[in-house]
């Protein structure tokens, strides 16, 4: 980061770096794919034991209560050592949502499990007919006595086959297309009637799955907010979610891959490539700066609604620009599927490039984010889609 570090922050960085070196197992470093939770759980657990698993959670809920600078230091050091991706739906999405809108019982049950890694979450928003148009949810959730009985289907459920809990949107009256009538529920994925089918991605991993519900009965105590009032629940933390997608972590990882490929292909001392690398480094610093700024504006209540969309667009497009360079630097190796595992660290030529296609699609496509910015931040009215 460009921001000068305080002595305390420099000490924190040194502590993080040496602790990472000591505690991150070699075989989990520089992975290119996100390992399945059971493989990364050792690392997740170590971070948890050390109190670093939830930097952005307040201490009152068991988080680290880290400053923005400490968060960025953690991102930079993670990218530096090549720390593996860990499940984030609990930490970044449902956890903060429950802190704000969950019942004390829901909080007491779920939050500690998210921190410990016992509860691995997935998000049940998208459906076959509704990708960008969330409000058109068709999965049915009918209240019968003390239960809500769910029938229907979710798709593009990131890591749905690894999760043991899902938060989902269902609606009482199917076919109705509006924002009320939607209920926000927490589902134990081991409930009877749930079937999952993994979906292979173009990068070759099982990033997503389809989830089918056949009379899945969920106690009403698992509803967040009120029945039929789920739209407000789901959208209450959209800004928070976009900020979590827009951290500098992904661009930093892309940069690490660019450096590795340049080194592998003898381009590290090529002036043209050094300039491209410099331009990419500056772009990543721009993401870090924007991340700081967004956190500060949201914390001080100075942000316009929808402003976080800018961070999502920025971080994902900077990442895609950098992996474009990774591809170009790879030259005749650009299509090689499996990262090289030479004496050096693994070098990934194609994986992150292919994986990164989703960045401009997931979490609300960048087209949707641009429309949000235009309408909510720029005040451009009469959006003709």
């Amino acid at each position, binding site marked *: 980061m460009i921001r000068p570090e305080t002595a305390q922050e420099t000490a924190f960085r040194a502590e993080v770096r040496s602790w990472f070196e000591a505690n991150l197992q070699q075989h989990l470093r520089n992975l290119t794919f996100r390992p399945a939770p059971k493989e990364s759980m050792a690392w997740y657990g170590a971070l948890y034991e050390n109190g670093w698993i939830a930097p952005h959670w307040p201490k009152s809920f068991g988080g680290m209560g880290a400053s923005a600078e400490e968060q960025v230091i953690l991102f930079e050091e993670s990218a530096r050592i090549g720390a593996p991706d860990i499940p984030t739906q609990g930490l970044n999405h449902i956890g903060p949502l429950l802190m704000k809108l969950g019942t004390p019982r829901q909080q007491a049950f779920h939050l500690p499990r998210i921190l410990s890694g016992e509860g691995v979450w997935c998000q049940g928003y998208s459906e076959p007919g509704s990708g960008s148009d969330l409000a058109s949810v068709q999965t049915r959730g009918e209240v019968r006595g003390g239960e809500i009985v769910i029938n229907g289907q979710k798709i593009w459920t990131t890591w749905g086959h690894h999760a043991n809990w899902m938060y989902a949107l269902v609606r009482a009256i199917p076919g109705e297309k509006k924002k009320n009538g939607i209920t926000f529920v927490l589902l134990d994925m081991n409930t009877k009637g749930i079937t999952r089918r993994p979906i292979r991605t*173009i990068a070759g991993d099982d990033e997503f799955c389809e989830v089918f519900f056949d009379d899945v009965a969920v106690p009403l105590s698992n509803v967040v907010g009120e029945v039929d009032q789920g739209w407000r629940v789901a959208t209450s933390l959209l800004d928070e979610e976009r900020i979590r997608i827009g951290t500098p972590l992904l661009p930093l990882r892309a940069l690490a891959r660019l450096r590795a490929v340049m080194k592998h292909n003898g381009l590290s001392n090529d002036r043209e490539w050094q300039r491209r690398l410099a331009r990419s480094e500056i772009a990543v610093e721009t993401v870090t700066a924007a991340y700081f700024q967004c956190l500060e504006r949201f914390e001080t209540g100075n942000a316009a609604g929808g402003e976080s969309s800018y961070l999502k667009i920025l971080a994902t497009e900077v990442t895609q620009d950098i992996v474009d360079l990774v591809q170009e630097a790879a030259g005749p190796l650009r299509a090689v599927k499996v990262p090289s595992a030479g004496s050096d660290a693994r070098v990934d030529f194609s994986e992150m490039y292919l994986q990164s296609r989703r960045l401009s699609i997931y979490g609300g496509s960048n087209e949707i984010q641009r429309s949000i910015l235009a309408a909510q931040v720029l005040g451009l009215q009469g959006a003709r889609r």
Partner: protein
Amino acid sequence: MSGDDSMIADSARIFLSRIGGVARARKLRDSGMAFDAGAWNEMAKLGWFGLVVPEEAGGLGLGGHELVALMEALGAQLAGEPVGESIAASVLLSRAEGLSSLLEEVIAGSAIVASVLDASFKLAGGRVRGASRPVVNLAQATHALIEITGENGAVYVVPLKSAGVELRTQATVDGRTVSELHLDLSSEVLSRIEMQNVSLALGNVQAVARLAAAAYLVGLADAAFAIALEYLKTRKQFGVAIGSFQALQHRAATVFVRIASVRALISECARTFGTERLDAASAAAACAASAMALQVTKECIQFHGAIGFADEHDIGLYLRRAMSTIASIGDAGSCLDAFSKAASVGTEKISSTA
């Protein structure tokens, strides 16, 4: 297109559809088979590998337009066989002396000759040693054309079954392979190619391979865009076809401009087949088509949203095949350097305004 090129394109389209089209590419990838011997033999029967070989040498005696038409058809259906590579090698073999039987085998499909030009092979003490940069589809070849630099430098044919030949092969994202060729063998195993100005002929092989790859990429991008366009017209969000959103319409228009203009460029390049301008033209074609194909196939995935990112949908196959095809061209920088060099040292300059 008119005449032979459209006949070639039509028959290729029909044949490739008959043997499975894009589904075949997927099946080959999933089965881990990089090569479909049955299809290869049928392609040989269609005369493809002798497409540009003079009729008196057993070929069809056709030219650049037919090559481009064939390669576009192959790209459109993601046929991954080393057709362009074989045709490129045939250009040299048909001019060399004493290689007519190898040429016959190439035309018949029983031999596949890869050109391994980005390499540093040396001859010393009766042995050839060295290694190449990674070459796409090399694992399917039976022979390699190599150039030995230094004293006694010349172009040779290496039978790849020989002892002392090692391929270091890696799988690519689309079910092809890319291999480094490592040699440490007696020079007696090699056949020296006898012809005038063999280095020039070797450059010509590379130029034909580049033109073929560029045409393949145009066919590929065009087919991907056709799929995306259909999706834009049928997929609904917010109650309307997503193709009615102006932001997407304008981006689709940009994709159209990119494909149409590069296709026009490649059609011009086809006219240079057999002339000194081919070197510069093919480098231009390869540079332009590579950049275009990546931009177009990425944008087509984006048009699809989440389904575009799923392996089960075909659209992602086009990006991945584009990647291995571009890998076969090398890297963008050297391609631009090749263009600069060829455009300025040829006896006729490409651009007379320079």
